[in-house]
């Protein structure tokens, strides 16, 4: 059971980090920030002249921004799923703990085993 809880917590933390980082990176790509030039520039021989280079670079910036936001959205879904996983795992743990405390259910299950 704690495996499900562990997975849930990991996914939740990863999703929160991913949402923050990818969203901000998407904005930066939209703003055509120079720090990301190496991600956006076309390959070494993939362009003919200066104007083509600039055009491709600008296009790439926009495309990557969209990529980032799409990934952000998928991580939002993952966040929701992980939250539900954690809730489910906690519920199960609580019910198992209650079961042990309750004399009747405990002894009934024990007698059945014999």
């Amino acid at each position, binding site marked *: 059971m704690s495996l499900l809880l562990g997975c849930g917590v990991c996914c939740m933390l990863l999703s929160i980090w991913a949402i923050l980082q990818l969203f901000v990176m998407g904005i930066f790509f939209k703003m055509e920030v120079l720090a990301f030039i190496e991600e956006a520039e076309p390959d070494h021989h993939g362009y003919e002249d200066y104007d083509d280079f600039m055009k491709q670079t600008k296009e790439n910036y926009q495309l990557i921004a969209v990529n980032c936001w799409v990934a952000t959205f998928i991580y939002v879904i993952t966040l929701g799923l992980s939250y539900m996983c954690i809730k489910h795992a906690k519920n199960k743990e609580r019910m198992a703990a209650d079961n042990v405390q309750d*004399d009747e259910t405990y*002894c009934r299950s024990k007698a059945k085993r014999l």
Partner: protein
Amino acid sequence: MGSLFRSEEMTLCQLFLQSEAAYACVSELGELGLVQFRDLNPDVNAFQRKFVNEVRRCDEMERKLRYLEKEIRRDGIPMLEIPGEVPEAPQPREMIDLEATFEKLENELREVNQNAEALKRNYLELTELKHILRKTQVFFDEMADPSREEEQVTLLGEEGLMAGGQALKLGFVAGVILRERIPAFERMLWRACRGNVFLRQAEIDTPLEDPSSSDQVYKSVFIIFFQGDQLKTRVKKICEGFRATLYPCPEAPADRREMAMGVMTRIEDLNTVLGQTQDHRHRVLVAAAKNIKNWFVKVRKIKAIYHTLNLFNLDVTQKCLIAECWVPALDMETIQLALRRGTERSGSSVPPILNRMETLEDPPTYNRTNKFTSAFQNLIYAYGVATYREVNPAPYTIITFPFLFAVMFGDLGHGALMAAFGFWMCYKEKPLQAKKIDSEIWNIFFGGRYIVLLMGLFSMYTGLIYNDIFSKSLNIFGSSWQNNYNESTLRENKALQLNPDSEDYLQYPYAFGIDPVWQLAEANKIIFMNAYKMKISIIIGVFHMLFGVCMSLWNHIYFKRRISIYVEFIPQIMFLTLLFFYMVLLMFIKWTTYGPTPPYFGSQDPEIVKTSGFCAPSILITFINMMLFKTDANTRPQCDPTMFAGQIGLQKFFVILALMCVPVMLFGKPYYLMKEQKKRDSQAHQSMEAAAENGAAGGAPAPAPRGHDDDITEVFIHQAIHTIEYVLGSVSHTASYLRLWALSLAHAQLAEVAWNMLLRKGLKSAGYQGGIYLYVVFAGWAAISVSILVLMEGLSAFLHTLRLHWVEFQSKFYSGEGYLFQPFSFEVILDSAGQTEE
């Protein structure tokens, strides 16, 4: 007022306790946790001490409690933690009540367990009988039909039946055996009875529970037909050997049916009884589970008190117990109050007496720390406990440790992750502590939560200075570099340089930290950062070491070693300053003197060339030439050979002065000690002569000259080792600080590789599946970042910082030859008992 500056003042005290009040007083002192008792009966065997009976009773109680705990754990019942306050040690008379309770519980539980086992055995027998009756029905049915197979009733053949007068009746035994044993059993029967017995077997489908081991085992029913008494005994013996249980099975089907019904009813009854037994056991255990932690604490406290009482001495009058203890001098009042409380509680009239004792022994080292400072103090203690009343490096470590870590780890993103982790641990401190998690790795991280938090925050700061967040830079204030090349130049050249001695550089630096453009400079980013980081490392290192040497001054002053100040501290400081602090100054001079002169970029005017970047000398070469008294040929004729006027002369002077410090360090102290000895010897002679003149009327001779415990060669050797260590160490330690540069370079490069090889592939992917691909790649990049860059690099930087503190910093002043103050404290005892239990 106690402080972290140096360890607390301790006094050795003698404690006189009246025997009736002793228990209560020791209980109060245990709650307080400020007193370290000494063992006054070291040669007495554990079995001959005064309170050995009480300790034995406590051990017995603990054994019973452990048995109860094992049973509770076996049933999976949760044991409640103690709500509210930890209970106090109970009075001695309460011990009898506790013993009675535990005895009762243990007996009850053992009885229930025994009954349950007997019942289960019974149940097993009945179940096996039930299976036998069912399966043998099949055998007898087949037997009843004579026209079936040959190997049936007429085992002896028709002749046997017809020949003898009487019909030969076949006997049989029925039983149950473990399935695994059947092949061997069959073989043995065949061989022993020479094939004259007939075995039929059928498997029991459901596994049965073995009562003693609670395992589920598979068994088979068998029935053996034989003729004659001899075979019967033989078969019975073989069954015994294979531990098969035999059951009486009636021949007639009607009898069998009746028996089957009887068995069924008995099984039902037994089930009910078993259920009720388990129920009762569970109730007993649940009731016990509510109190068991409480009881454990009480019993452990009683045991601890009696162990401590065993350390005391009994007074001649047998009415009073004497104890010797180390006590922090500032806490005498608190201890007196505790003792008074104890005597009041026990109803005794005689107040306890706490006496100070004079002693020449070394007291233990005690530092009063809180949850924040204790982590840093433990880092220092891990290397060596401070000598009594020595200057404590811990308060400075609170800042220098995270700072040096951050210089090696500087990344805003990774620092933020570490700070978030540390913040969560500190914020959720109380609930996490209450959980008492077992894992040792977790306990290490949790114990250092404040260190982790500080390291993360400082790393965020140095990340901003290095302008590095996950290997990308942030352009917050606008870069100070601009591109002035025209389009054709850009198109034709693969790589171009921006010259700071031109309009390319705006002549004022980026407002905070490294300019963001450097992250994009593939070709010479590393060369530039190397120059910067190496100089910073040496500057930080020299300051750290100078600070360490200054700490030794405080030690010399406190321990009144005035001569050490003159022959050790002053030469040490001079050596370090004249050589390495001078090098630091050279770095600052180089930074400020050489650079572009704004209106006259690239001018050839000799005056301007002399202060341009072209003429900046190499600090390392300058330093090496300084030490070797060498001058290189000037390869750049437009430049001055020196940085400032009189540099060569000044450097020669510094080196000679520094070298003169070495013999002072080497011979100063031994020479002074030799002089002192001669003076003492001559004084002793004089006083002895004076005593002889006065007519020594049976007076004792003058006190022998104290102190020259080691002869003079040992002092020389000791001092030589110290000097060589310091002199050579100053060179090697200064270079050792370059690890600050090396690790930060490694971290930056690893982060860059992770981004370029992983995340860039995800970002560049095209089309609609690009987003999904990025989703997957980001998870991988995040995993690599956390595991390699935060965890592995973090541990590595932590280790190197620790080494820098322990070796480079502390070797300048720390002797670390003390022993730790370990007070008698219930908290400590309960914690360690709880841990060993798990």
